[in-house]
């Protein structure tokens, strides 16, 4: 896997965020990518645009907002942000606890996304991901290898 510390910069992680609605939550997830130096600020608008065409709520209380194809030009490097909303956010009618903002130029983030999908397909680890409150535990969850 690509370096987790680079893909998920500590500046792009928030455990105690609040947002009154989906768009505000997307802005927070986008600003976290900006804070990590992964995207230009203009990228956040393309995240909102993309959400309006195809929503990014994927299940298990998790949404993965990201920009449009045109927004790719505003991406500096592959990166994820992780913003947790302990009180939840109404994500177009679905209750979201976590917004994972995505910025990608290439495929550096694909394995990490697959790992997140794997965590979410198991109710136990999905709950653990929703309840994580510090960077160390988050990285430990994401770094675990397959038990094949």
């Amino acid at each position: 896997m690509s370096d987790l510390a680079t893909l998920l910069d500590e500046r792009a992680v928030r455990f105690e965020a609040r947002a009154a609605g989906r768009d505000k939550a997307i802005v927070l997830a986008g600003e976290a990518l900006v804070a990590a130096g992964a995207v230009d600020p203009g990228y956040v608008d393309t995240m909102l645009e993309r959400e309006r065409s195809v929503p990014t709520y994927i299940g298990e209380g998790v949404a993965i907002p990201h920009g449009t194809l045109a927004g790719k030009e505003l991406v500096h490097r592959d990166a994820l942000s992780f913003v947790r909303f302990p009180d939840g956010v109404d994500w177009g009618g679905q209750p979201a606890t976590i917004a994972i903002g995505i910025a990608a130029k290439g495929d550096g983030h694909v394995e990490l996304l697959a790992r997140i999908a794997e965590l979410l397909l198991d109710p136990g680890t999905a709950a653990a991901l929703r309840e994580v409150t510090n960077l160390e535990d988050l990285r430990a969850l994401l770094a675990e290898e397959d038990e094949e």
Partner: protein
Amino acid sequence: MTTIDGSTVRKLVVACDAGMGSSAMLAGTLKKQLKKSGVEVVHSPVAEIPADADVVVTHKGLAERARGVAGDTPVVPFDLFLGDPAVAKVVKAIQDKAQIDV
């Protein structure tokens, strides 16, 4: 109705809008699941679906656009990003080298 012959699938494409979010996630998952079957899994924006794709998997909202680009290549629409039964069926057909109608 199109038939997918799991034994002949060499390249599976997950198509999406920008190719960086849900399609990338699903591609990563399928890559893991199909590693042993030797199938190449890629993700791409709908408009850039590669011509040598054997199966295209895409969100139902993009299926029509994907069909327009993919020509005769079977397009499998899915609804759920996590654990969609239509996607699971394709994976199983490839793993079992079986035929399915989509």
